[in-house]
C-alpha cells in the first residue's frame, strides 16, 4: 500500500515538474501548452491523493478542458507569429536577479519546511464527506455563499470584457452606409479626435 502510494506520488510529481519545465522552456508555444496540460493533469492526480476529489474533477474540466483549449485557440489564431525568436538572449541582468531571488526564497522556504516537518507528520482521520461534492457544496452554499455569487458576477464580467477587448472596433455595415451620406459627421469626428490629441499633447 505504502509503495503504491509513493509510486503514484512520484508519477504525479514527475508529470508536474516535467510539465512545468516544458511549459517554460518550450520554444514553440504549442509545446508549451502541452506542457501546461501535463502539469495540470499531474496536479489533478495530487488532488486525488490529498482526498480532494471534487477539485480534481474541476481541475480537469476547467483547466484541461477550457483554459488549455483557449490557449491553443489563440496560438492557432496567431499562426506562425505566435513563436517569437530570442528566448533569453537579450535578457537584462535585473530579470536574472529577480529569478534568483525567487529561487533563493523558495530554497529557504523548503529548508524551513523540512526542518519543521515533524509537526506536519500526523495526518488526521477524515470524515467520509471530506473533499466530495456534498462536503464542499454544503460549505459553499452556507458559509461562503457571498463570494460564490460574486465569483459568478466576476465570470460574467470577464466574458463580456474578453469579447469586447478581443473584437476591437467593429464597424456595423448598415451604420457605415448611413454615415457615408452625411460626410460632415465623419469630418466632425476627425476634428474632435484632433482636438483631443492636441489636448493630450
Amino acid at each position, binding site marked *: 500500500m505504502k509503495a503504491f502510494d509513493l509510486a503514484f506520488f512520484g508519477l504525479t510529481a514527475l508529470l508536474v515538474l516535467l510539465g512545468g519545465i516544458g511549459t517554460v522552456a518550450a520554444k514553440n508555444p504549442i509545446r508549451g501548452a502541452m506542457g501546461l496540460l501535463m502539469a495540470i493533469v499531474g496536479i489533478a492526480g495530487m488532488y486525488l491523493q490529498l482526498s480532494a476529489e471534487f477539485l480534481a474533477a474541476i481541475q480537469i474540466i476547467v483547466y484541461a478542458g477550457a483554459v488549455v483549449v483557449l490557449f491553443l485557440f489563440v496560438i492557432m489564431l496567431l499562426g506562425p507569429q505566435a513563436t517569437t525568436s530570442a528566448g533569453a538572449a537579450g535578457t537584462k541582468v535585473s530579470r536574472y536577479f529577480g529569478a534568483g531571488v525567487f529561487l533563493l526564497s523558495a530554497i529557504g522556504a523548503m529548508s524551513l519546511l523540512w526542518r519543521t516537518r515533524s509537526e506536519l507528520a500526523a495526518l488526521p482521520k477524515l470524515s467520509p464527506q471530506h473533499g466530495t461534492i456534498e462536503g464542499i457544496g454544503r460549505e459553499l452554499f452556507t458559509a461562503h455563499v457571498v463570494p460564490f455569487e460574486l465569483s459568478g458576477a466576476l465570470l460574467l464580467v470577464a*466574458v463580456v470584457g474578453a469579447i469586447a477587448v478581443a473584437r476591437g472596433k467593429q464597424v456595423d455595415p448598415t451604420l457605415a452606409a448611413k454615415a457615408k451620406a452625411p460626410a460632415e459627421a465623419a469630418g466632425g469626428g476627425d476634428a474632435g479626435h484632433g482636438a483631443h490629441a492636441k489636448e493630450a499633447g
Partner: protein
Amino acid sequence: MSTVPVEYFLIVAAVLFVIGAVGFLLRRNLLVLLMSIELMLNSVNLTLVAYNRIHAANHAGQNLAFFVIAVAAAEAAVGLAIVLAFFRVRKTIHSDEANLLKN
C-alpha cells in the same frame, strides 16, 4: 487514503512556483507569460489543498482553491483577449514591443 506525507506536496508546489516565476521573468512571449501565471496559480492551489489535508476540520483551503480556479479562468480569458488586441496593433506578441506608453 494516501499515506504520502504532506510536505512532499508542499515541496512540489514550491518548485512549481519557482518554475513559473522564473519563466515569467525570463521569457518574452506573451502567451508563455500567461502560461507561467497559470503554473504559479496551480502551485498555490496545490499548497492550499495540501494544508487543508492537515487541518481537515473544514474545507477552507479547498473552497479557496475553488475560487482561485474561477478567478484564474477569468484571468486567462481576459489576458488572451488582451494578447489578441495587442497583436492586432503591433503584429507581434513579443513583450518588449509593448512600449506604447513609454516616454
